[in-house]
C-alpha cells in the first residue's frame, strides 16, 4: 500500500496496473460479502413478510387460532386444529412406514454391502426416488393408488373414499425414505472399525455387532435422519394436496379425507377474498415455516455433532 501511494512510483506502469488490480480485488471481496449478506437479508425478509401479513389474523383470533375446531371462511371463523391434526397424522404415519425401509437401506448399504454394482444400483435407486417430482407421485397416486385403496376399503367394510389421510401418508412415506436413508448410510460407514472388530473378536455374530455396536454408536445420527424426513413430510405439498381429499372437517379415522396445513394453503390461497381469510392462511404458512425450520436446524446440529467427534 505504501509504495502505491508514494508519488515517486506512480509513473511506474506495473504499479499502476497493480493499483487497478487492487481496486478490483477490493471490489471482488465486497461482492462476496454482499452475496453472503443477501442471504441473511432474504431470510429476514421472508420472516418479516410472513409475520406482518399474518398480524390481522393473530389480532382477530389470538391463540384460539391453533385450537379452534372450525374452519369456515363463509362465517369468517378460522381454527387451524383440523389441519394441525391432518398434518401430524399424515407426517407421523408416513414416518412410521418409512423408518423400517430407511433403516434397512442404511444398514444394508452402510454395513452389509458397501461396494460393488449391487450397492451402487440400490444407492442410485434411492436417489432417483428423491429426484422424481412430487407432482408425478401425486398424479400416479390419483389414478393407481386411489382405486387400489378404494378396493381394499370396500373389502374391509370402511367407507370407500379412496383418497384420504392414509393414501397421502403412503405416498409421503415413499417420498421421505431417501432423506433418512442417505444420511444413515454415511453415518453407519463412519463407525470406527476397531469397535466392530473388537466385537467380532469376542465372538459376536454380524447381527449382534449391528444391534449392539453400530446402532448405539449411530443412534443420534439416525435420529437426526428421522427428523430431517419429518421436516420434509410436514412441508410436502403437491402429492398430499392431490391425495388427501381436502375437507376442512376434523378427520374421523385415518382413512377419512382431511387437509394438511400445506394443502389448505395450496387449495385456498388464490380464492381467499377476505383479508382475514388470507391472513389466516399466511399464519398457517408462518407456523409451517417455524416448525420445519426448527426441526431441520435441530437435525443439522445433531449431524454436525455426530460427524465431528
Amino acid at each position, binding site marked *: 500500500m505504501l509504495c502505491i501511494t508514494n508519488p515517486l512510483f506512480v509513473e511506474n506502469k506495473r504499479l499502476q496496473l497493480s493499483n487497478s*488490480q*487492487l481496486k*478490483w*480485488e477490493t*471490489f*471482488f*471481496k465486497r461482492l*462476496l*460479502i*454482499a*452475496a*453472503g*449478506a443477501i*442471504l*441473511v437479508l432474504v431470510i429476514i425478509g*421472508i420472516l418479516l*413478510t*410472513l409475520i406482518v*401479513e399474518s398480524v390481522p389474523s393473530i389480532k382477530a383470533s389470538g391463540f384460539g387460532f391453533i385450537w379452534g375446531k372450525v374452519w369456515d371462511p363463509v362465517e369468517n371463523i378460522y381454527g387451524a386444529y383440523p389441519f394441525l391434526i391432518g398434518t401430524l397424522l399424515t407426517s407421523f404415519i408416513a414416518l412410521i412406514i418409512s423408518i423400517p*425401509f430407511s433403516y*434397512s*437401506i442404511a*444398514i*444394508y448399504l452402510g454395513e*452389509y454391502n458397501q461396494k460393488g454394482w449391487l450397492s451402487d444400483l440400490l444407492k442410485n*435407486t434411492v436417489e*432417483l*426416488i428423491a*429426484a*422424481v*417430482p*412430487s*407432482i*408425478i*407421485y*401425486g*398424479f*400416479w397416486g390419483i*389414478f393407481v393408488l386411489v382405486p387400489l385403496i378404494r378396493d381394499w376399503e370396500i373389502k374391509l367394510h370402511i367407507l370407500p373414499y379412496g383418497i384420504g389421510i392414509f393414501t397421502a401418508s403412503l405416498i409421503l412415506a*415413499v417420498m421421505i425414505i431417501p432423506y433418512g436413508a442417505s444420511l444413515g448410510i454415511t453415518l453407519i460407514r463412519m463407525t470406527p472399525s476397531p469397535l466392530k472388530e473388537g466385537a467380532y473378536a469376542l465372538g459376536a*455374530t*454380524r*447381527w*449382534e455387532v*449391528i444391534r449392539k455396536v453400530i446402532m448405539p454408536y449411530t443412534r443420534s445420527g439416525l435420529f437426526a435422519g428421522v427428523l430431517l424426513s419429518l421436516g420434509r413430510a*410436514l*412441508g410436502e405439498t*403437491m402429492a398430499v394436496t*392431490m391425495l388427501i381429499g381436502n375437507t376442512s372437517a376434523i378427520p374421523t379415522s385415518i382413512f377419512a379425507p382431511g387437509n394438511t396445513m400445506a394443502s389448505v*394453503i*395450496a387449495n385456498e*390461497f388464490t380464492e381467499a377474498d377476505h383479508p382475514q381469510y388470507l391472513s389466516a392462511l399466511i399464519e398457517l*404458512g408462518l407456523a*409451517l*415455516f417455524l416448525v*420445519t*425450520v426448527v426441526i*431441520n*436446524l435441530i437435525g*443439522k446440529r445433531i449431524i454436525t455433532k455426530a460427524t465431528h467427534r
Partner: protein
Amino acid sequence: MEPRIGTRNAKSMFFKGIIVFFAFLIALPLIIVLLYIVKQGITQVNWTFLTHTPAPVGEKGGGILNALLGSFILVMVAAVVAIPVGIAAGIYLSENPNTKLSYWAGLCVDILQAIPSIVVGIVVYFWLVKPLHTFSALSGSAALCLMMLPIVIRSTEQTLLLLPPSLKEAALSLGVPYHRVMLKVIIPCGFAGILSGITLSIARVIGETAPLLFTAFGSPFISASLTKPMESLPHVIFTYATSPYDDWHDLAWGASFILLVFVLTLNIVTKLLTRKWKIQL
C-alpha cells in the same frame, strides 16, 4: 445363559434376510411409478404434442408447447440470478469460515433449504405479485431462484473446501491478485463440482409446482413476457390431472413423461459430474 451359537447364527441370518428384503422392496414403488408413467405417457408424445398449445376440451390433439417454453424460461431466468449469487456466496462461505457473517449466512442457507416450497410461494406472492397486481413469470422465477440458491451454494462451498490449499497459495505467491486467483484458478479447478450443483438444482426446481401456484400461475397461451402469467410443465400436469376430462388426463400423462425425462437426464448428468468429486449434496 447365552443361546447356542447355532441359534445366534440363525438369528443373524434371519435379520440379514429381513434387512435385504426391506432394502430392495423400496425399488418396487419406483419401478411401478416409472413404468406406469412411461406406459401412459410415451404414446401421447408426438410432433403435434410438442409443437402445439392445448386444444379446447372435446377436440382431439393439442400439445404442451406453452408449458415446455414456459418451464424453460422460468428456470433459465431463475438460474441466471441464482448461479452467480450462489457461487459468490459459496466462495464467501468457504473462504471465510470463521466470520460472524459467514456463520449467519450458513445458518440462512440451512433455513432456505428447510423452507417448505409452498411458503416460498406465499412470500414471493407478497414481494412481486401483489405490488405488480398480476401473476407473472418474473415472480415464478424468483420463487424458483430462492429454491435453487441453497443447492448451488452448498455444492460450491463443499467443492472449494475439497481443493488443496496449496493451489491457492501457489497462485497468490506468484503475485496474482485475489479475484484472479478465485476466477482463473480455484473456480476452473472445482468446475465439475460446481456444475453438478447447478444441474442438480435445476433438476430439483424444474418439477416444483407449489411455489408456482401463486406466482407464475399458468396460461394457455405462448408468451415470452416476464410480466404476464406463464405456464410450466408441473403446473400443467397439476391442472390437467385434477380436471375431470380424459383428453386432459392424456395430455397430463404426456407432460409427466417429458418432465420425468428431463429430471432423470439432469440427475444422470449430475451423477457423471460428481463421480470425480466426492461431494455430498
